[in-house]
């Protein structure tokens, strides 16, 4: 079977790299944490990996805006390399701050290739950082990271998680292109305002992917639910099924095993 190699990006202020590496390892990948400076020095490194994960944290303190400075750095130093990585059929996953970075580099942030950024992630409507668990209803049929029909439960922890579109056309295009991956719902699958939709995101969107379905960004943290004892009230639960966050990493690893 193909050896699955995943790179977990490090940068000043990224702080979920260890647990993200652990989650990938649980799913069978060989995962390495590598600092963005090393990749800029030697972009060839990317060649030997099939999965790139930009984990959560506060890259460069989220100064100016969440993920902005790291996105700027990647645009100006790694743009071509990342495009090639994606063109090669490889996978990119952005979690929380990583999602913000992917949107602000434009990799996930637009629907027209030649346009400027058309989608953004901005301040929560509630005006503050929130740590809470949310239910996520899957939607996209093309996104390779998810399991159809499996509603999952994951924690969010962010102050800027509201997905916003430049205009309705962009929003429609994302939908018709089947790029919406997860929406915030309640435990029965119903939409709702805060706290069900914790940040006021347009159409309750929690995650979306690019047109290939191989690049996904999501605000919730799948790497924080890869063991049952990470569930917020695991002491109440009899059912010890596979922790929901595992699905994302399992699917990524399986995809690489089957396609490379």
């Amino acid at each position, binding site marked *: 079977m193909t050896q699955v190699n995943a790179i977990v990006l*490090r940068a*000043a*202020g990224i*702080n*979920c790299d*260890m*647990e993200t590496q*652990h*989650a990938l390892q649980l799913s069978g990948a060989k995962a390495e944490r590598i*600092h963005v*400076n*090393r990749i800029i020095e030697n972009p060839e490194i990317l060649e030997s990996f099939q999965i790139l994960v930009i984990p*959560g*944290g*506060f890259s*460069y*303190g*989220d*100064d*100016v*805006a969440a993920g*902005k*400075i790291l996105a*700027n*750095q990647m645009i*100006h*130093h790694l743009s071509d390399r990342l495009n090639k990585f994606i063109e090669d059929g490889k996978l990119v996953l952005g979690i929380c701050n990583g999602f913000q970075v992917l949107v602000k580099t434009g990799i996930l942030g637009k629907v027209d290739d030649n346009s*400027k*950024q*058309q*989608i*953004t992630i*901005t*301040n*929560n*409507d509630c*005006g*503050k*950082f*929130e*740590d*809470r*668990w949310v239910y996520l209803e899957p939607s996209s049929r093309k996104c390779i990271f998810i399991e159809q029909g499996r509603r999952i439960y994951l*924690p969010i*922890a962010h102050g800027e998680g509201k997905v*916003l*579109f*430049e205009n309705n056309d962009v929003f429609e295009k994302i939908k018709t292109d089947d790029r919406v991956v997860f929406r915030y719902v309640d435990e029965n699958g119903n939409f709702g305002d805060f706290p069900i939709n914790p940040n*006021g995101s347009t159409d309750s969107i929690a995650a979306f992917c690019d047109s290939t379905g191989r690049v996904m960004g999501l605000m919730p*943290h799948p*790497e*924080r639910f*890869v063991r049952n*004892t*990470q569930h*917020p*009230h*695991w*002491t*109440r639960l009899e059912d010890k099924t596979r922790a929901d966050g595992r699905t994302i990493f399992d699917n990524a690893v399986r995809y690489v095993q089957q396609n490379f």
Partner: protein
Amino acid sequence: MTQFRFEVFNKADSVDVGGRNVLADIKELGIETVLDVQSARVFLIEGQFDDQFAKRIGGELLADPVCEDFHIGKTVPQAGLAKATIVEIHLKSGVTDPVAESVMTAIDDMGQKCQNVRTARKYVLFGEINDKQLKKIVRRLSNDCIEVVVIGAETEPPSPHLAPYQFNLKTIELLNLNEQQLVELSKKMDLFLNAVEMKTIQDYFKSVRREPTDIELEALAQTWSEHCVHKTLKSSVDFEFDGKEIHFDNLIKDTVFGATKQLNKDWCISVFKDNAGVIEFDDKDAICFKVETHNHPSALDPYGGAATGIGGVLRDPMGTGLGAKPIANTDIFCFAEPDKSFDEIPRGVLHPKRVAKGVVAGVRDYGNRMGIPTVNGAIFFDDRYLGNPLVFCGNVGIMPRDKCFGKTSTGELVMVVGGKTGRDGIHGATFSSGAMTHEHETVFSHAVQIGNAITEKKTLDTLLQARELGLYTAITDCGAGGLSSAVGEMGAELGAEVELSKVPLKYAGLSYTEIWISEAQERMVIAVKPENLEQISKIFADENVEATVIGKFTDDKKLTLKYQGTQVGQIDMDFLHDGLPKYSRKAKWSPPENLSEPAIETKENYNDDLVKILSSYNVASKEWIIRQYDHEVQGGSVIKPLGGITNDGPNDAAVVQPKFDSDKGIAIGCGMNPLYGDIDPYWMAMAGIDEAIRNVVCVGARPDRIAILDNFCWADCKKEETLGSLVRAAQACFDGAVAFGTPFISGKDSLNNNFICDDGTEIAIPATLLISAMGIVDDVKKCVTADLKTAGNILFAVGLTRNELGGSHYYKIKKQLGANVPKVDLRTAKLTAEKIYKAIDTGLIASCHDCSEGGLAVALAEMAFSGGLGIAADLKGLPKTDDCASLTAQLFSESCSRYIVEVKPEKFNDFAKLMLGVPFGQIGQVIDIKKLIIKDSSGKNIVESEIADLKNAWLKPLKW
């Protein structure tokens, strides 16, 4: 070079969260005439680039292309609209501006250089406001200590350029001063040294036959400050109590440390020596814990003070042994009650709600950015904290067992790593060693420190890599006292020589003395063998971390300071560290007079009292705060601060699992009861120890592997009575630790927490002892939580309920204090904890909750609404003393060492058998009906409430 001014603001159709939050703040001030607030971010960028590139900076970097617009230049609100007032808030020159640094990096990434970046916040207030209101608003939005406010469109912000420093060695005339002149000198230089200390210093310089330089006096003042050396707690004390005199040679050594020494636990690795106390975790790793206070800075600048509080305490584990990795934060705050009118606030004091919000935001922003989960905490409200809010920040770290000790050697290099040095935090250590006054706000603004969490995070990331490779031999943090303390401590046995002009600075203009005593954040000092210099420097450079050799360790037992090659100071290490005169103090304590138990009316039912206690600030849910902290980062939070069926119920302690490949965990809890101290500080301290231990035992920690920490926050201990109450508490620390077999491993004190108002009146904090506990959990899968699990299960009360309403929350809502303070029966307390642990470990317990603030009724209510189930309870089965006949005492007494547990019917016999030997009784069962029903022993319902009502009462008060 051109200066470009950028203003970035929200597009008309997107939510201006910043403006909205400010509008809410203004409304909170009672100003209703402001109708709308628009916020903007301002960037002042100096660079040699053209307009075209400036537009790119605006569009590609500063403004979000979807929801923001930018303008180059100044925007002015359109004429004809409502009256608009422009308020712009700039940082004072020299204050750390992390965003500016990031913008410079980003412009560099875009291919252009810029010389200088500054950022500011701009608000346009729409509506009629008068000057007085504007002043109030400005005070709310900005902080004098670090910010400058510019009002109106015409005014220019302050210039960022600072004059360079001209070296000029300053000698102070000391040798010929008389006592009075010595005291005056101490005052003039803000040394906070008393006559005896000044005299000792004078004698030293007489013996070396020269006048001191300014840097020598400053270094001594810092090393000898109360904050750094804890001279009060280390002094010898003659204590008068109960007609007897007790002598302590060294108060803290004879009490708190003494217990640890007597217990002599082999699992304690390093206690009271290093920056944090260290105990064994498993075969490979050790864990350490430190709790610090950051009270004075938080009073002046709640946001910055609390942020640097957490930033500072993180550097303690980072600077323990060869450096630990921080894995969990704790935060405990004491504030005045938040619902106060501004007229009640003395001059020089911030409104308690502003303090609370600022402190929470500071902890949030620093802790979250560092990627360390904030898992445990508490908040205590009492109006005596008005002038001196207390901010306790704690951190637990993990490190390999073979990295628990560092050792410097002659010839090794002194390297400073992390943040650059600026003028921030000058005199922090000495300033926090005195009482606060209304003038502190202006006089000591320079003592406020500004943090940059990302600098600390980068420093941590690289230090851990260097530690793994064994590239340094010792490490410590630059905390209070800055380089002076750090290098002074590391070189204490050997001697050290430092070239101050090598220290990397944030900006020009610092004198050699300022460099030496600055308390700028995010700095660590390491000792590096010359042969490792190249390799370790590369690790730091690779991740853009500043690291500079500033000197070397010598063998002359002297601290030698140079600036540009000229010697500016030299002090014998022996004198610096051991020259402080030994103090003897007198202390006395006698029980407050006129304490009595109030007459209590008997009532038909206690529903209202229960609701009132649940919605009193100390008991009410802290969810609003907890959710702003990331309590799950690192993926190790097994028992989170919120739990239960809807994830919003209380848990007694947090449990973190620090290693992915092991189910071993650490339970973290705390205990603090200042109200009991108003009756007897001895029992307050004892209750704190009992509560902290109980909390961690409730979730499944091993009672034989619990270590505790002390944090004494007291008022002016020069007063014999105040010191006496501290001695009482310290005595309890000894007795409690020994009886429970629970060693203290680290501690800290903060004295002089009294505020002197401009009319001379004094607000002294109540005696406040925080006990923090950390206990080992062998298997986190066995942990239990407080929420009820299944209808039909049986509820037991374990531990005796006594007639002990003194200092209770029941009395608090009745505005009474009482006299019968809860006492701890030490033998039973320990046995009970052991049995509860055994029951959890053997799977006999479905849920377990500590019975504390608000007593039995509150504990039952919390378990019920947290589990979404009801309770039918009956006081007939409650184990109680004979004098505990009153229903109020049974419901609300806060007797210690009590647990409420839920047991499945089939485990009844095993549980009952295990509990033999401690008082316990069946008090009811879990029911499907969502009500809390408590019957008295005659079968009459004395509490009957919907759990939803109880929960709402508990959730609402602090939902800001």
